[in-house]
């Protein structure tokens, strides 16, 4: 027998009667023997191929966990540095929608596991429809996510440098609302008044975020007061860096000193005033963004599985891809299970 080109497709096809009840295609390989069509030529046996595939997928998932792990580490560090900022910012996320998404993903894990069971028991209908259900649930997740993002963009919460609240956004009874413009000075930290006085230029910005090394020399300060931040109401594009707003001229444009509790619809809380609140949302967008990307990739993979299961490729003899994609999907779900409480609940 001529030595066939290893890159060619396998030799002649033959239908085998192998006693396993399957009408699968068996092919004649280079060495003159029959082997199942799904067995790749470099593997000695189907068992070896199955075990190798599973090990490979598990290793890949370990790398995925490390990828997200880096982001979780960044989150933990910043949370430790700016706890009140993070708490306040997480209040802006819609917990109901987040919980809904969690439920959706959990359900999709169930359906994908069910689909694997269908393959294992040669039940093509169960396999196919559960795969479809998984895709549908994943789609639901993305749609809900879309609405969440859209709401935030509406309020001006963009990642990174573009972070700002749209002018006039206030918190009314705990809800963020775009509405009439409100201007306020923040009460300064230690009970002093407003920082509406003019300042000379040339001073260093107040250094020392929570957790930073303490200055070894007294920083040139303005008699120990922290600065209040002023948001000029007519300047929607204002995006002051900390350095700027400490030394900023331009005064207060006629704002009144704030008295605590005066009006409900005044801005309150550090996230309206501290541009560093953008850090929370940046981490939020990066993590949920990368997670969303993984959901989309999973959707595509599961759709391909569904299509192929229609053609009868998977059976109790060979369902490795279904199992592996299912594993991937479970990890995507688990990552969300961690994301949700960290971002939304605490």
């Amino acid at each position: 027998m001529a030595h066939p080109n290893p890159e060619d497709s396998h030799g002649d096809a033959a239908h085998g009667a192998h006693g396993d009840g399957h009408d699968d295609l068996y092919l004649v390989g280079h060495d003159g023997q029959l082997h199942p069509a799904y067995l790749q030529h470099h593997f000695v046996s189907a068992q070896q191929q199955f075990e190798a595939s599973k090990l490979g997928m598990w290793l890949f998932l370990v790398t995925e966990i490390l990828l997200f792990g880096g982001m979780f580490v960044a989150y933990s560090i910043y949370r430790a540095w700016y706890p009140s900022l993070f708490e306040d910012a997480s209040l802006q996320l819609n917990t109901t929608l987040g919980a809904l998404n969690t439920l959706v993903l959990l359900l999709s894990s169930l359906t994908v596991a069910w689909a694997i069971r269908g393959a294992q028991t040669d039940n093509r209908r169960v396999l196919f429809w559960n795969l479809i259900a998984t895709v549908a649930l994943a789609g639901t997740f993305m749609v809900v996510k879309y609405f969440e993002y859209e709401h935030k963009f509406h309020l001006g919460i963009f990642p990174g440098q573009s972070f700002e609240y749209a002018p006039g956004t206030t918190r009314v009874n705990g809800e963020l609302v775009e509405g009439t413009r409100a201007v306020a000075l923040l009460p300064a930290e230690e009970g002093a008044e407003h920082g509406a006085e003019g300042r000379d230029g040339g001073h260093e910005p107040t250094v020392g975020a929570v957790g930073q090394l303490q200055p070894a020399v007294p920083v040139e300060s303005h008699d120990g007061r922290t600065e209040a931040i002023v948001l000029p109401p007519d300047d929607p594009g204002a995006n002051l860096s900390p350095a700027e707003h400490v030394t900023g001229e331009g005064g207060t444009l006629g704002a009144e000193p704030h008295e605590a509790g005066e009006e409900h619809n005044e801005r309150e809380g550090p996230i309206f005033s501290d541009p560093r609140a953008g850090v929370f949302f940046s981490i939020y967008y990066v993590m949920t963004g990368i997670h969303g990307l993984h959901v989309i990739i999973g959707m595509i993979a599961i759709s391909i599985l569904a299509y192929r299961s229609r053609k009868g490729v998977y059976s109790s003899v060979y369902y490795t891809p279904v199992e592996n994609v299912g594993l991937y999907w479970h990890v995507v779900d688990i990552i969300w299970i961690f994301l949700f409480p960290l971002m939304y609940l605490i």
Partner: protein
Amino acid sequence: MYERTRFWEEGASFLLPPQGSTTAHEIDAVFWFITIASTILTILVTIAMVYFIVKYRRKSHADRPVLVHESKWLEVSWIVIPTLLVLVVFFWGFRAYVSTSIPPDDAYEISVKGQKWLWTFEYPNGFVSSGEVVVPVGQPIRFTMTSQDVLHSFFVPEFRIKNDVIPNRYSTVWFEAPREGIYQVVCTEYCGKDHSHMGAHIRVVSRSEFNDYLRNPPGANLPPAEIGAQVWETSGCRACHSIDGSTSTGPSWQGDWGAARPGSTQGTVNDEYIHQSILEPGAYITPGFQNVMPSFQGVLTDAQVNGVAAYIRVLNGAATAADTTMAEEAPETGAVPGAGPADPSQPAGLETGN
């Protein structure tokens, strides 16, 4: 221009610079121990290699492998002995690290700012100098450092001190120099174009000289043009501006006076233009150059800024009489625009007898 002349004295060797600080010898001791131990180890390995190569050289391709019994004791010994050596080195290094990184309580504090591409030093009384810092001999000095832009690192090879200089944070180094002299500072964290030209000098002088220095900072009793020359030399200007006409990061001061500056408010290089260039360099960029000059607001005194203008005039042959004669009144001591007067409650120098 400072040229190091000490090469072989004060603990220096082929491998190490002179020991300019009181703690350098501790670090050098660990260094030498590891170096010598490592050299011995390398030599032993090499000898073993050469011996085996010679003794067991292949005689013919029919050489059959000889059975060698693996000795557990040999394996154990070359695990245990290096481990012990390594632990000794670790503890010694750790102790030296602890003792050399904690500044004494009576350290005299100077605040240091690193920026692209120069170092600025601020004394407790408010006096600021850049490019050079003068400190008294035999007195622990602590530098508290921060960066104005990117990461830098403050390294004095002869003192064996180093620490990164980070924006929005403070880091410290300390030293006590037992001998007078000039010591080189270099930046050791890559920071861009002129990273290799970001040196500074530490001038160690006697206490009385130091006290005089603080009371009468340089340039106090000099003609403006000489003050300007000094500023060029020691305040970082020379890193980017030449005085011989050659183009560098910034325009050369030679040929500059009266040169046209199209588009600027002043139109040509005059006094006002020079003042603005020093205090607000970003306001106008000479065509053909980049906007990389840092501002010297708060860094140079009025006298120094005037001196630069005078010096430029001298370089261009346009000097006036006022440029080259001493001012009638002594300028304000330590005055830095915008910083307020030097705080009189702070000692201008060190008490003698400290």
